[in-house]
């Protein structure tokens, strides 16, 4: 999708942000195209959340410009923020149920009254909370994360921003969210920006990456770039055929650069043991 349609839905040009003498962002320039799953990578404190705050208008940037869905004026920027669904932590009234919270946000977002009930049922089912009736204060962290993502996708936004959506989740929860993110892009056509400091997790989710380091986007790369970085071919054979494979390759004049046993990943092992799926 991102290869065929490169219309920029979010663009930051030289965005800087300072808190007194502390420069958090030192000229962030990035572009997220329609249909991307854009992974924002960086260690804690690198400036990922601050970038989101700039996009969402929760913090004013010192210099630079932000454009959402082609906005060129401040008024358009405010209007186009309505096209964004976002999860940046738990934003809920704890004394209300998850459903009541979603009803509140659905009304506030201006979803037509006659569509609210169906929309909430759809969202709760998507995030797997359709049977939960208790107030949010009784939710586990994972349930709050799911509800937060549910709130983000209410009304089927064009752009979805997820800030560390897998923070504090168990392996099943992480896998579920990864699966959901792909589904939002593939089935609902959303453009997704997702941040994490867990590189392995993001690598499995996103198709473009912005590496945030010292307040700038140090590099923007794609999944393809990651493949090209290591131009060797991996050939897997079973242990029983190993000797035979060596002979065949040697006879054909093919050099074996490296040989090693492939380990099963902890994630695969975990899911094999307890059931469930990673993808």
């Amino acid at each position: 999708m991102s290869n065929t349609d490169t219309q920029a839905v979010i663009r930051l040009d030289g965005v800087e942000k300072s808190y007194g003498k502390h420069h958090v962002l030192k000229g962030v320039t990035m572009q997220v195209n329609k249909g991307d799953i854009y992974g924002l990578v960086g260690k804690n404190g690198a400036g990922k959340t601050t970038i989101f705050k700039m996009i969402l208008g929760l913090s004013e940037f010192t210099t630079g410009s932000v454009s959402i869905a082609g906005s060129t004026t401040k008024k358009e920027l405010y209007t186009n923020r309505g096209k964004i669904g976002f999860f940046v932590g738990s934003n809920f009234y704890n004394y209300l149920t998850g459903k009541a919270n979603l009803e509140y946000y659905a009304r506030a977002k201006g979803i037509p009254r006659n569509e609210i009930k169906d929309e909430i049922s759809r969202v709760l089912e998507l995030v797997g909370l359709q049977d939960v009736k208790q107030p949010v204060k009784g939710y586990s962290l994972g349930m709050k994360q799911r509800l937060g993502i549910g709130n983000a996708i209410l009304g089927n936004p064009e752009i979805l921003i997820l800030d560390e959506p897998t923070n504090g989740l168990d392996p099943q929860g992480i896998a579920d969210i990864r699966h959901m993110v792909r589904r939002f892009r593939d089935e609902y056509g959303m453009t997704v920006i997702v941040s994490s400091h867990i590189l392995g997790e993001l690598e499995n989710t996103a198709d473009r990456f912005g590496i945030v380091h010292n307040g700038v986007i140090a590099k923007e790369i794609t999944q393809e770039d990651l493949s090209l970085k290591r131009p060797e071919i991996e050939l897997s054979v079973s242990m029983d055929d190993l000797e035979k494979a060596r002979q065949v390759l040697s006879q054909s004049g093919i050099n074996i650069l490296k040989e090693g046993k492939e380990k099963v990943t902890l994630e695969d092992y975990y899911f094999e043991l307890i059931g469930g799926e990673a993808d």
Partner: protein
Amino acid sequence: MRNLIKADLCRILKTKMLYVGTVIAVAVLVFTILRSLTSAGRNATGYMSGLNSALDGFIFPVVIALPVFIAVFSHELTSKSMQCILGHGLTRGKLITSKLLEAAILLAGIFAIIMIAAIVLASPEYSISSRQMTNGIIAIWLRALRFFGYICFSAMIMFIANSTSLGIIVCVAFTLVLRIGFMALSRLGGIEVYDYTIDGLLDWVYKSIEAGGPGLQIIPVFLYIIAAVSITIIFFNRKEFEF
């Protein structure tokens, strides 16, 4: 903005405290008027005296102003719902204005019920003139405006200090303590500060209207409220939101 007000009102109207407060307020009104009719005579003077006593008492602020403030604002900072609303493109000024309008709508609803109760109690047997009844109704709505003023100032403090507890404490102070303090200052120290507070100005407005005057002292009351709202918006515009 309209969507947010609708959404908030749907949420806030589930707060039981508001209903309990309104029922207590109406009960206090009925009890005070009936008691006054018994002690001061079953006439217009007894009725008006009862109505004014009920409105001036300390029960109304506790059961109306405080619950409205708590219902509208008490979960705003902890829920971080404001971040969510702002992120969807509502301006900060509109957000603050929406919250205060919600408080105004709730107060209007509650005081409309109080007004209806007061009218129902105004039996023809007491010979209340239309002028007296009008004054009574004006007194009711001036009380609503007074509570709205308290709420605006409490909200301003809450947003500046980023503390719900402080907002509630200030609301209690405005509704109960400051009035007594300012009146004591006036009586004991001869310092007439009270007359220039929202409370004092609104007392002045009522006396002016009662005497057939235009009640122009209401202008500074609105200026106070506009100042409180403006300060809140200016501060809010510069606020950095945390997730």
